[in-house]
C-alpha cells in the first residue's frame, strides 16, 4: 500500500491531488503514516515506528490505522493494489 506517485505531499501535512484538484490536510501522526507508506512499509513496521514515538497501545493504533488508510483509499490517494 502506498500513496500514488502523482500525489504531492508536503512536509507540513498538505496533500494535493493534481488529477482531481482536491487538496487535504493531515495531522502529524497522519503525516508520519503517509511517510511510512511511501517507504513501502508494512503495517507491522509502521505500528512499531509509531508506537516508539507516541504513547499508544497496539489495539488503538491498529483500529485508527485501518480507519485512516480507508479514508486515504476513499479519497483515491492510494495506488491500486
Amino acid at each position, binding site marked *: 500500500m502506498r500513496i500514488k506517485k502523482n500525489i504531492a505531499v508536503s512536509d507540513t501535512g498538505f496533500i494535493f491531488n493534481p488529477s482531481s484538484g482536491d487538496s487535504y490536510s493531515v*495531522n502529524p501522526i497522519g503525516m508520519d503514516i503517509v511517510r511510512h507508506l511511501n517507504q513501502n512499509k508494512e503495517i507491522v513496521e509502521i505500528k512499531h515506528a509509531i508506537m*516508539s514515538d507516541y504513547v499508544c497501545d497496539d489495539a488503538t493504533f491498529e483500529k485508527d490505522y485501518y480507519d485512516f488508510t480507508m479514508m486515504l483509499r476513499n479519497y483515491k490517494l492510494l495506488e491500486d493494489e
Partner: protein
Amino acid sequence: MVKKIYERPIIRPLNSGMMNKFGTRTEYLPVTHIDGVSVKSLIAQYGSPLFVFSERQMRENLRNAKRTFENRYPKVQFAWSYKTNYLNAICNVFHQEGSWAEVVSRFEYDKALHNGVPGDKILFNGPDKTDDDLRIAIKNNSPIHIDHLDELYRLTEIASEMNAKPRVAIRVNMDTGIYPMWDRFGFNYETGQAWDAINKILASGKLELVGLHTHIGTYMLTPSAYGVAAAKMADLALGIKNKLDTKIQYIDMGGGFASENTLKGSYLKGSDIVPSISDYAEVICTALLNAGFKNNDLPALFLETGRALIDNAGFLLGSVIANKRLSDGRKATILDFGVNILFTSFWYDHKISPAQEFGMHTEDTVLYGPLCMNIDVIRENITLPPLNAGDHVVVHHAGAYTVTQSMQFITLRPAIVMIDPKGETHVIKNNETLKDLEHNEKMPAYLQKFKLT
C-alpha cells in the same frame, strides 16, 4: 526519548471558498477545569457521565439580574422557577439569594414547602391544580395564579367552603408580536377574556385579586415583545384601579429570557444573538414606569426567570466510548451520555469542549449517545479535534431543563455534583441504582418464578 502524546491520525479535505463569512471556528479550546476543579478528578471521583453545577455562577447570575432590574425599577422580586431545575440544593441557592418559589404542580409546591419556603412566598402557577391543591394553597396563603374559568369557579366554591379569601392572580396571554403566540395558558387580553375573569373575581367577593401574571414564551430572542406585554399588563392594572377601584399589588412578567445556548438551525451562535438581561430589563421597566401609575400605586415587578439564571452554571461531563466511520465517510463518536439525560440536545446545538489538550487539527464528527436507539444524537455535526476512547468532554449550558426533563431510559441516571464558591465539591444527588428504580415495582405472586428450557 520522551514519547509524544498520541492523537488519532486524520485526513480532512480542504474546501476553499466555502460559504462562511466568519471563517473556520477556533473556539474549541480545552476545558480542563470547572471553577478550579479538574474535570479529570471530578470524573475519577464521581464517575462519568456527571452533572456539575457551579454555585458561584448561579449566585452571580441572580445577583446580576437583580441589580439590573433594581437599578431600573423600585420593587422587584424574583421567584425561582422550579421546573427549570428543582434539585433541592439548586433551589436553596436561589432561595438564599432572596428568590421566592414559582411552582406549576403540587409536586413542586410540596418541594418548595419542604425546602422551607413560606407558603405566602410560593407562586402557584399551572393549569392542573386539584381541589386538594387549592385548599393547601389557600391554607398557606399562597398567591394562586388562575389559569382557566373552571379553576376560577372551583376556587370560588372552595373559598366559600373554607370561609377564606384566597390571594389570586390571573394568568393573561396576549399578542406581543411574536410567533407562535402562547395562548393556551390563562385568559386572553385582546378578546376581553382577561377582563371577564377580573370582573368575575371582583364581583364574587370571595377572592382577593393581588396580581396579574403573564408568560409570553420561552427562549425569547425579542426583548421588545416584553415591552408590549408589560404595557398591556400595566393597562389592565390601571383599568382595574380606575374602573374597579382595586389596586394590583404585583405584575408578574413570568420567565422566558434566553440563555446563551444555540438553537438548532440558528446561523449564529447563541452567545452572539441572545439579548442581555439589561435588554429585557430596559423594555419591561420602561413600559411599567411610563404606563401612568401614581407613585403609591406602582405594582411590584415579579420575575420567574429560570433558564437565563442557571443554564451556564450547569455542565455535563462525559467520556468517549468509541469512534467509528459511517458508511458515507463521516466520523462518528459515541459518548457515554445520551438524549436520556441531555434532552435539550433535541433543540440545542450544545457547545461541547474536549477536556484535554489537543493539536490544531479538527474533523467533522457526529456525536452519538450510548443508547441503542436511532434518536440518540447529541450533535448531528460538530467540528472537534480527534478524540480517543476514554477522552473526556464537557457539555456547556446544561443547567436548565436537563435534570428535570431527564428520562430514566435504558440506563441509570448519573450523579450530580455542586462546586461551592470555595471550590469544594458536594454530591447533591446520588447516581441512580437498580434498587431505586425497582423500589416501587410490584411482582404478582404468579409471576415470581419461571423456568426456561
